[in-house]
Each structure stands twice: as structure tokens, then as C-alpha cells.
């Protein structure tokens, strides 16, 4: 078959073919996209494979024009080189900046450096997502990271305004940036089974309760949390209160038995994690600590998800319940704030 030296099709209006756009986002090269479309039966009667191929090429060329513009979404909506309807503009940005959880799982907690970009082949191998798509996702993170890093003010708003992303997606990016900034340990073997969404839920919780709008963790709070150590003096009292609150079959037999025996170690781990957070090293290890010291022992003891939920609710002591708290009134506030973020993290890790 003779391939024309030149064969282009240009419209005054940029009418996007979402199906081909998706294939492009997924990183398919032109021939593979064409054969996928063919398998889906996109050839009408009378159409030939080279028409389909040409069509995909036309779209791919305009997508690469689009891609240059999409680097700065605010310019993209202002540009008039391609005439795109306002609805399509929004959808295009959202789809371009959307990502695969599996790929993002590999990227979180690492600085988006050129070195990391070179390792995308591994990510591709691991996730089955084509390397072109991995690169796009990585470049998007890096772009947002670079831009938002230099800005002050509300991170979520910055992402929304600079990249014109819808709220849920902006929130996910905020969590990604947060995980990167703090450099949380997310890649240890013990955490390997966790998904991106697990980390998103955890990070989102930490952001909500421990950080300000600039995603800066409340260092003062961590310093204050050291005072929580005092509660360990009243460990017995805490145990009694907890067990009393969990009476009446709120725990499964396995968990109830385990808790009576191991309350001390669980409780101490929780408190130790809290008091260590002021050291950035331990902060980075938050997830691994929670996993190793809380989630795994309980899983070994065959706790159920609802056991864990009840337990977290039960140890959320208020000022009246523990003697220490009655004396030092700011301690229960610290403790409850600590648990508000850590509690959902534990539950999320436990569920996975």
C-alpha cells in the first residue's frame, strides 16, 4: 500500500475523539492504537485500515500540539490556536492530569527527579502501564510539584487555580505533594501491599488534622505531643476504662482475649509513635511504625475490622476518663487530635 507523502485533515473546531484520546493517554503508539480500534470494530463499511491509521495519526498530531499547551492549563484555556468548546477544555485537562493509581503508588514519597524519570521503565514493568503514559503521569506530578513548591498560600487552592483541576483530583495531588515533601516511607517491603488509595486516605487525614493550608505540619503540635508520655503512668487506668467501654460483646472473642493480654504493648506503641513525631526521622516512618506495631500484631491476633474500629473509638479518651487528663487539661486535646488523624490511618492500613 502506497502511503501518501502528505495526508492531513484539519477542522476549524477541534472535535476531540475521546476514544483515541484515551488510547493516547494510555501511551499507545499509533499502530497499536489503530489495531485496538480495529478490534473494537471502529471500521465502518468501506473504510480501510490505512484510513483508520491516518485518522489516528491526525489525532495524535493534534494531541501533541495539545500536550504543549496543556503544560500550562491556564494558558490552555486562554489559547485560541485550537478552537475547543469550554466543556471539552475542562474535560481534556482533567483527563490529561488524571493518573493510574498503580503508577502513582510507585511515585509517591520520592522526589520527582530526573533520576526517578529514568527509572520509569521499572514502573512500567511493574504496573503494566505503558512507559509513555508513565512519563506523562510523572511529568504532571513534577510540574505541579515544581510550580506549587515555589508558591505560598493554600496548596489545594494553588493546584486548583494553577492547573484548573476539579476538587477531587486537586485533593489527590495535594496528598501526593504532601507525601513527597515529608518523604514518608512508603516503599518498605511491609508496606508493599498498600495501594495508592490507602496512602491517599492516610495523607488526606494527616493534612486535615495536623497541617495548615500550606500543607505544613504543625511542628508545635508534635513538640506538645511529647507531653502525652505522662499518660503511660496511668496505663492501668486507661486499660480499665478501655475494656469497660468495650464490654458487652463489642469485640470478637479473639480480639477481646488479645486486648486483655496485650493492651500494654499496643497502648505503649501508640503513645511512643505520638511522642516521636517531633523527630522528622520518626515522622517519616509513621506508616511503617503503625503497620509494624499496631496493624500487624492485631492481624496476627485475628482482630476484625470492626474490632479495630471499636478499639480506636474506645481509647479516644476524653478529659473525664483518665486521671492524668483531669490534671493536665491540654493533654486530652492533644491525644484526641493525634487519634483523629492516626485512627483512620490505622483503620485504612488494617483494611488492606
Amino acid at each position, binding site marked *: 500500500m502506497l502511503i501518501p507523502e*502528505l*495526508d*492531513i485533515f*484539519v477542522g476549524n473546531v477541534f472535535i476531540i475523539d475521546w476514544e483515541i484520546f484515551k488510547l493516547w493517554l494510555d501511551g499507545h503508539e499509533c499502530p497499536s492504537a489503530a489495531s485496538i480500534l480495529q478490534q473494537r470494530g471502529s471500521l465502518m463499511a468501506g*473504510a480501510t485500515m490505512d484510513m483508520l491509521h491516518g485518522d489516528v495519526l491526525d489525532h495524535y498530531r493534534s494531541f501533541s500540539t495539545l500536550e504543549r499547551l496543556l503544560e500550562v492549563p491556564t494558558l490552555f484555556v486562554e489559547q*485560541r490556536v485550537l*478552537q475547543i*468548546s469550554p466543556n471539552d477544555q475542562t474535560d481534556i485537562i482533567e483527563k490529561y492530569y488524571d493518573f493510574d493509581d498503580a503508577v502513582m503508588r510507585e511515585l509517591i514519597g520520592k522526589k520527582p527527579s530526573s533520576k526517578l524519570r529514568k527509572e520509569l521503565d521499572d514502573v512500567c514493568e511493574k504496573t503494566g502501564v505503558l512507559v509513555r503514559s508513565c512519563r506523562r503521569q510523572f511529568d504532571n506530578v513534577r510540574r505541579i510539584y515544581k510550580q506549587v513548591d515555589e508558591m505560598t498560600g493554600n496548596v489545594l487552592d494553588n493546584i486548583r487555580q494553577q492547573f484548573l483541576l476539579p476538587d477531587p483530583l486537586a485533593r489527590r495531588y495535594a496528598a501526593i505533594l504532601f507525601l513527597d515533601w515529608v518523604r514518608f516511607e512508603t516503599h518498605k517491603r511491609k508496606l508493599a501491599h498498600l495501594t495508592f488509595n490507602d496512602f491517599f486516605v492516610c495523607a488526606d487525614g494527616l493534612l486535615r488534622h495536623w497541617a495548615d493550608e500550606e500543607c505544613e505540619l504543625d511542628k508545635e503540635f508534635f513538640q506538645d505531643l511529647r507531653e502525652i508520655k505522662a499518660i503511660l503512668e496511668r496505663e492501668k487506668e486507661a486499660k480499665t476504662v478501655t475494656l469497660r467501654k468495650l464490654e458487652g460483646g463489642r469485640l470478637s472473642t479473639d480480639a477481646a482475649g488479645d486486648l486483655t493480654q496485650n493492651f500494654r504493648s499496643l497502648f505503649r506503641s501508640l503513645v511512643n509513635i505520638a511522642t516521636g513525631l517531633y523527630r522528622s526521622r520518626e515522622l517519616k516512618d509513621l506508616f511503617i511504625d503503625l503497620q509494624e506495631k499496631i496493624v500487624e500484631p492485631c492481624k496476627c491476633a485475628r482482630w476484625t475490622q470492626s474490632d479495630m474500629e471499636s478499639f480506636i473509638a474506645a481509647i479516644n479518651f476524653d478529659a473525664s476518663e483518665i486521671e492524668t487528663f483531669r490534671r493536665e487539661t491540654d493533654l486530652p486535646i492533644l491525644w484526641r487530635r493525634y487519634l483523629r488523624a492516626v485512627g483512620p490511618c490505622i483503620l485504612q492500613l488494617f483494611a488492606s
Partner: protein
Amino acid sequence: MPGKVKVRVLAGRNLPVMDRANDTTDAFVEIRLGTVTQKTDVCRRSLNPQWNSDWFRFEVQDDAELQDEPLQIRVMDHDTYSAHDAIGKVYLSLSPLLAPELISRADTAPAGSAGGPSVISGWIPIYDTLHGIRGEVNVMVKVDLFSDFNKFRHSSCGVQYFSSPCVPAGHCVQAMLGFVHELVVNDDPEYQWIDKIRTPRASNEARQTLFSKLSGEVQRRIGVNVIEAGGNAVIGYRQCFDLEGETGIVVRGIGTAVSLVRTEARPSSPSPLSRQPGSGRDRDSDPCGSPHLPQPPAAASAASVPAVGAAGAPAAASVGASAGAPVGVPAAHTTSVEGSDSGDKLSRSLENDTNFKAPSSTTSSGADTKLLAQLVTTSAQQRGQQQDNYESAEFPFITLRTFPSGFITHIGGTVSARSVKLLDRIHHPEESETRDAWWAEVRTEVRSHCKSLACNVVLGYEEATTIWDDVCVLSAYGTAATVNFAALGLSEPLAAARCDSREVRSALRLDASLTSQALVILEEPDSSVSNCAPCHLPYSQGSAPASALQFNCAVCRKSKVPDVVFSTIEPPGGLPVTGRGCLVQARVCREKADVKSEVLAKEVSDRLPFLEYELHRQLLTKLRILGMNALFDLTIQLSIGEEIMVAVATATAVYLSALPPPVVPRVTSAVNDSADRLAETQRRITETVASNREAFNISDQDESGRTSDEESEDEEDKPELDLAAGNKDACILEMDDTEDADLLSMLMSRPPPELFDLVSTSSVPGVPERLLLDDRQLFTRIVRTKLSSASNRQLAQTVEKIIQGLYFKLRKLAPCALCGLRFSVDLPEDDEIQISVYGAALSVSAPLSKQASLRSAGAENGSADGTGEGPVGDRSAGRAGSVTGALKTQNSLWRGDYDVIITPLPHVTGGKVERWLGNLNFFFIRECTGLREVGGLNGFMQDLITEVLAVVRAHVTSLGGNALVSYFMSQCVLLPNPHKNQAQCLVNVGGDAVLVGHAARSDDG
């Protein structure tokens, strides 16, 4: 007229990084008009500079300069130590700002609400010939003209230009003043010695600037003629750039000079009736207000003009190729000016006549118009005078393709003339006489063809050149017809009279007796609204050559009609059509010797007649196989290459109810042993014809209006059968060898798939316009491929494949109708062919082939055209300024609100033109020195076309518009040099900028 141009440069955005060291740009802007240049301050270190300049003023002594010179805005990067770097340029034509508001027929029109734009303002892409679009600049431009009432002025300021080949919506032609033409020649900067030492950018820009200037100059010169003739506008304006290479460039303009008035008292008032017939949007707004049903046959003869006897060729294409013996320029006619000089401001003094140049003078002035010089009046007598003047003019040509109902009395057929010329160097750029004389010859020939068909005017007139090496073929063609000038503006007062006779009287106060007079004449065209007269032969029965076939008209049964009609115009409104129209194309490819100069000229002129004959034969056969009997909107593309010549004729085939049903082509063969194959082929042809008739809803004719007269029906059928045996015109296909067999299979090209309709006309003939909902997309496809052999078959396959590709590319918009298709064919290299096609994809609610209402479409067309009434609901919208807003709020999702619509059609489907904002014409040059880096030729061209459209849209927006109608793309010259990793492309685009509102479509079911 002296004038003042005021320019403000507000800001730039998204500029490229020019200073790599710190990733910024120190931008400033140079504004240049003619020889004067002014500058803004430098805005340091910003890609989004804010200049917020004061008004820069340019004082111009002569408005000619304003018309010729584009305003050049050049964005530069300031460099302290070396030369400033160019970022890019914007060329702004000032002519849209020079057009005054046209006189409105109604006094009530609020001033300034509906005239041309008063300011150019907005973001315009900065274009660089080496990099394409590089950011945008926000400018504001105003022009103040100091009108001095100098009697001796030769100013052509204020003449409006419309590319649209029809009377612009909202306007009415008061007088049609004649064919105007002008050409200027110049050296092409690309071939000047200085080009060897200047940079590619400087060279490209010199060219772009020159082209822009020449284009302005041609317009201005035409304008002078128009004003001398007492007109104020040119419609059907076409401008061409002939790139002759070494010998220079020629810019030609042709058009129809008219005196135009606005018809709308308020933009919200009843819509204009001067809108092209066949445009059904008028009707849409008032579906039941047009009581006109197809006229009974008896009424049809009312409008027929006494036929003039003449020896005419059959009403098919009359072709001729002249190798160029000079034809004597007809002696100058004496000018006769109507006596009733009413002191109209457009009148001119006879003394000026002495300044007129003869037709063959150096500037090729439009000689016809001054012969037609007359007052702008609407009296019917004067229209009669106008008709006489037009008919006796040197070139009674009209470049429009769409006409008011009743204007065309008879269509004679297509006439064309070609002339092969040898180009030689133009020594004095000021002397354009050679080219003028050439064109005069060709035009004279067309005129004589027209006369021999007993016709008095040529409609849908076109001119084109084909250049290869130093040989140039001039082609001119059009449709010979007889017309009735009395019908020109009449539909308008008619409707106005219906709405408010008082308004009419005040509007037409030029002539007190006018109203009554006009109303009397109204009867005539009105009764002929749905008649079949245009189909009738313009000459009497006896005078026709014996070979010409004649039949009784199937509608009125009185007059004679030919068996087939070929024409270059849109189907006249009201003409009864059966079924739907569809695209038909003939493609001929011939080998030619690779010779030079005189030998080449000889070679070309020897081959041309064969090419044309073959073209005609193909068209006729294809038409018959489609089961149709008329061609409209015929265009012919001729292209010459090193070893081949190609001609492509594109038209829309229609079944005219008045004409006899086409004969099924017969196959014969001189070879005896192929009887089986012959029978088989004959069967296939018959089947194809039948399936085509079904596909295009061409039902059995006997149902519709034919049954009334059984006897004549029989009489009609008999001669057909006889003629089929012996007459050449009865369509007999010879199949003597395999090549012929191949040809036959090629002739039976597939009809478009069910979901698509394909036509070259501005709407689908036989389909009421209300079924065409929305102008969804302007598409451009450019293919350049190897032609492995110089055979018709290979060419046909290539083009068919491109068409098939269109269906595929537009599959997600289906069902849709692809209208206004324009093809162009070039043979850039020895075995390469470049084919460009563009058109409008109109959305339809269901495939047209499925819509039951089509059967009565012809009748519907007839009833509504020319008498359609304006949108009733719009009246509530009230005063001018609020109309756009009011229309917008009716449907906030209409794409005209956020998109700039570009369409090759003269109207926006689904919209209503509210203001005409000026004619745009751009010449882009783009060069690329990193072809591979931009994705090869495909990437280069896709970017170029995308950016060209973006620049056009921005200019439309800056004039306050939201659409460009009658869009054209010509001269897409691509010069690739893959070995050097380079390419260059020239492209000429343009059209009419308009503001459209969303048409109320409440009546749509």
C-alpha cells in the same frame, strides 16, 4: 480624502522566550503604516508584557494609502548590543474600517447599529514565517476619515467587498452595474537579486507585505470603477494570486459592481428577502406564512421573455480553446446616462469620462462599469435600462452564483474559453497591458459563446489560471442565461409592502411613483416563483441545431427544454427538483510530452480540447448513471505537470422535474465475442441507475405532475428510444477493450453512505433547509501522493479514496450533509499529485435519505423562496443593540456564542447574519528548516492550517464578528525539500467576516 489612523498597543501574552539566559523576553512593538514607523517602550523581562501605550497617530494624506497599505505590527525583542530579534508580525487590513454604513431603506435604522465595524480591537496571534504563531498581541485600531467633498476625487474609499457570491443577507441590490475586473503585476521578491543576500525571514516578509499591498491596490482600483459607475459595493468578489515565478506575480480581482442598500429597518425586523433563494432560514421562522404552492403549469409562461433566435449549440458545455490570436477590442461604447439626475450623491459628472481609461489601458480598468454608469434608482423603467446596459456591455458577466427568484428567465448552458499563453518577463511592472489583453480575448470568446446560445448574460462567471514553467493557461467559464433585471430588488418591497406599506414608501422616497410601480411588476416574478422557466430553452425551436434534443417541459408542457442542463450557478430557487442532489466529479488525466516554452504551449493547447471532451463525456455519463439530468455549481480545475495534465470537474447533480428523465446509458461494442460481457455490463449499469434513483429519492416521475397529460407523455417517450440508437448525445458507451471496461466500472462510483450527503452547492438541492440544523465543522483535507500511472483510473481511485476518507474522518458527526465542497488539484512534481478539499459539515437530525418529508421538498422550496417572511418572534427583541443578546439568551449552548464559525457557504446554517463586517484576505508564507522535528510534512502542514485558521478567527473576533462566511482557500503551494529537512508553503485564505445570531428555530419538529 485625508485620514488619521490611531493605534494602541495594550499588551502581549504567551510570547516566546527570546533570551535563553534568563528565560524571558524584552518585548517592544513597531507599528508601521506605509513609510512611517512608531514604537512602544520596551517591556523588560516579561512573556506577558503590558505596554498600555497611548494612541499612536498616523496621518495619511490620501485614502488610497489606507486601502493599499496594511497596518504592520511587528513585535520585537530588544537587544542592547546586537540587532533586535523579530518575534513576529500582524498584518491588519484597514479596509473594513473604511466602509461607511450603507444607506438603509428605512429611516428608522438607528445609526451605527448595523454598519461596518468602527474599531479593530482584540488579541491577534503574532505570526512569524519561520515559527508560526508566537503568542498574541492586544491592539486597538481606529480610522478617522475627513470627508472633503472634492468633486474631482478618484477615491474609492467606502466601497464594500463581499466574497459571497450572492446578495448579502440584510441587503438589497438596487442596481446591478456590471462586471468589474482589475489586475496588477509586480516582480516577485522571491526572484529578485536581493533575495540572494537577505534572510529567509526578510524575504518571506517582503513577499507577504507586497502581496498584501497588491491585494489592497487591486481592490482600490476596482473601487474606483465601482464608484464611477455609481455603485457602492462589489459582490461575488474573487481575488487570485498568479505566481508566475520568474516573470513576477499577478494579482487579479473580479466581481460584480452593485449599488447595495440595507433592507433591515432594525436588525430585528423581518429578515431580508434579498437573501439567496434556496436559503430556507427565512421560511423556518415563518413556516406557514408562505402560501405559495407550486404554480399550475399555466402560470409559468408569464415570466418568459420573448426568445431571441440564434444559432445555438446544444445546451451543454460549449468549450473552446484558443491558442491566442488577438481579438480586436470592441470599440468604446458611448456612455449614456439617464436623464433624471436627481442629485443623488452617487451621481458623477460626465466630465470625468475623459479620464476613463480604455479597456486595454495600462491598469485594465473595469471598462464595463462606466458604460453602465447610471443613477442609483429603483424605478422599474430604469431597471429596464439597466438590463439593456448590462446586455450591451462589453462583458455582461455576473460573478454571483445565487440569485433572487425570478431573476433567471432561462439557462442556456455552460460556456467556457481557454487560452494558452507563453509568459515572458514583465519589464515594467506598471504595464499590465499584456495580461489585460489576454483576459480580454478570453472574455470576448466567452461572450460570443454566450450570444450563440441566444443568451444575454453569463452568470456564475469564474476565471482561473494554470501555470507550469513559462506556460500559462487562462480559463474563463460561466453559465449563459437570460435574466430579468426587474426581479432584482423586487421581492424585498413586496414583503415590505406586506408588513408595512408606509415603511416602504418612506424608504423608497427616491421615486414617488415607485411604490405602485413596483407592486405592479411584483405580480410577475411572484407568479413565477415556482416555475420551470429557467429550464426552458432560450432560443426558439426552429433555430436550434438539428442535433440538439428538445422536449416538452414536464412541468408546464408548453415550452421546450433540453435533455440536460450544465451550469456553474446554484440551483435557482423555485425550480422544481425531484429527489436529492449529489456530488458528481469527472477526472481526466493525460500524458504530455516533457517539453519547454513554445513547444510546451503547443503541446498543451493541442491536448486541451481532448481533455475537455473527455471531461464532458464523463460528466454526462456519470450524470445519467446517477439517474439525474442537470448539473449545478460546476467548477473545473486544470493542472499541468511535468509529464501529465489533469482536469477535474466538480458539480452537483440534480434531477430537475421539468427535464425529461435521463436515458440509461447503453453499452455497445465493435468486438463480437464479448456479447456476454456486454450484457453483463449493461445489466450492472441498469442496476446501478436503479439503485441510485432509490438512494436519492428519485421516485417514478409519473406520480408528480406528469399524469395530467397522457398523450404528450407518450410522445415524449418515443423519440428518446429512437434517439438512443443513433444519436451521439443519447449516451452510448463503447466497450471495445479492457480499458473501456475499466472506465465503465470507474464511472459507476459508489454513492455516499447512508449517513452522508455530499454536494458542492451551498445546500443540498431538493432538501428543505430546515432539515440542515447546524454548521458543525469546516474541514480541510490535503493529500499529496504519488501517481503511479497517468491513467484516469488511477486518478479516480486517488480522489475516491480521499472522499471515502472524509466519510470516515467525519463518522462521529454523522448523520451530516457535506456542503460547499471545493477541490483543487496540483501536480507539483513529476509523478506527484496534491489534492486539497474543504467543505462544511452540516448536522442533520436524521440521515436525509431517511427523511420522509423529502418527497415534497421541491414544492416546499418553491413556495418559500423569494417570498419568505422574516422571523415573527424577533420583533419583541426591540431595539438594535439588544438583539444580539436577546438572540443569544434564546439558546445559550449555540456554538456561535463561544466559537468562531468558518464556513465556505455564504450563510451560517442555524444562524442569521446580523452584520457584515468586512472582507478578509490573507496570504500566509510559512517556512520550516527543521521538517523532521515538527513531524515531517504532515506535522508542518497540519500546524500551518491550524494556525492559519486561528489567525483568521482572531481577525474576525477583532472586528466584532463571530463567523467567516464564503471562506476560501486557494493557492496552497507546498514546496518540500526533505533532503535539506526544509519546506515552504504559501496559502491564500479569506472570506466575509460577519456577526451571526442564533436563528430562532422554534418551529422545528
